[in-house]
């Protein structure tokens, strides 16, 4: 009786299927599977699994790093602005940050779907970008708190720094997925159908 052939982690294969460029997606999946099979024989299945997961995360990084950092720096920048130039009414700044985040998510969704032809990839990028932005925001808030030293707890600056740790992750994920999906849908509707597009589906 022959042993069943080892296969890559299902989640990693799904990520590759979702984020690999539409042009040559099958060839990419085949290349990775071929290398995985060889590694499973020469170094064992766990090492091959780790290798495949690293490749899948490479696709995630490529799609989500830029929007994640843009989002993180916009949130961090907003917090630093609140710390350095405090105001009683922050509604205008909050609205600006929200619109900027929506723009970043929408562009990220457009860019990702333009490459992959899959709207679901835009949603995945939105979730990962939010996670990255949260890390950047926490790091910024932590560094700013460290740099500010000891402050009276009721000071405006201390309150602004405190709010820096209060990242609205759930609303960001919801808004992000919606905006990125809208961007992805736009990419599918307009760009993939335009005759001048390299992804054109028109014949």
């Amino acid at each position, binding site marked *: 009786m022959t042993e069943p052939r080892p296969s890559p982690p299902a989640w990693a294969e799904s990520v590759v299927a979702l984020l690999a460029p539409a*042009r*040559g997606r099958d*060839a990419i999946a085949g*290349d990775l599977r071929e*290398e995985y099979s060889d590694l499973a024989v020469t170094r064992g299945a766990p090492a091959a699994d780790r290798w495949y997961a690293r490749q899948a995360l490479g696709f995630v990084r490529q799609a989500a790093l830029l929007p994640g950092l843009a989002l993180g720096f916009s949130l961090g920048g907003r917090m630093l602005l609140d710390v350095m130039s405090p105001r009683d009414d922050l509604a205008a700044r909050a609205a600006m940050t929200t619109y900027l985040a929506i723009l970043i998510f929408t562009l990220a969704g457009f860019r990702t779907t333009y490459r992959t032809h899959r709207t679901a990839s835009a949603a995945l990028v939105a979730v990962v970008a939010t996670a990255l932005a949260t890390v950047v925001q926490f790091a910024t808030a932590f560094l700013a708190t460290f740099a500010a030293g000891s402050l009276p707890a009721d000071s405006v600056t201390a309150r602004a720094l405190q709010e820096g740790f209060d990242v609205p992750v759930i609303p960001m994920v919801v808004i992000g997925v919606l905006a990125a999906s809208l961007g992805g849908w736009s990419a599918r509707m307009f760009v993939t159908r335009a005759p001048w597009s390299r992804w054109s589906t028109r014949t």
Partner: protein
Amino acid sequence: MADVLGVFEQAVLVAVMRLRGDGYGRTIHKEVIARLDRDVTASAVYATLDRLEDKGLVASRPGEATPQRGGRAKRHFTVTAAGVRALNATRAATHNIWRGLAFPLKVKP
């Protein structure tokens, strides 16, 4: 004037050239890792190949499928005439930058 390529683009294009038209994603990936002497994710290589193809510096054609690949076809890459010109232009630019200096550079004490 031909494109002047970045280091990673050069590594990918040289890898495609060295594989003489038989290169496909996996072999190009391995060749790039060997050339750069560092770990590189496959996604970076594929993104660069995609960009080089958009610029017309490489061309691709479908290859054979094998059971080991899950029945998926390979995609073979070749360097186009424009790709060769871009490599020559890049090599010439690098040579010009270094003209008059002996390699390796010496650090003054």
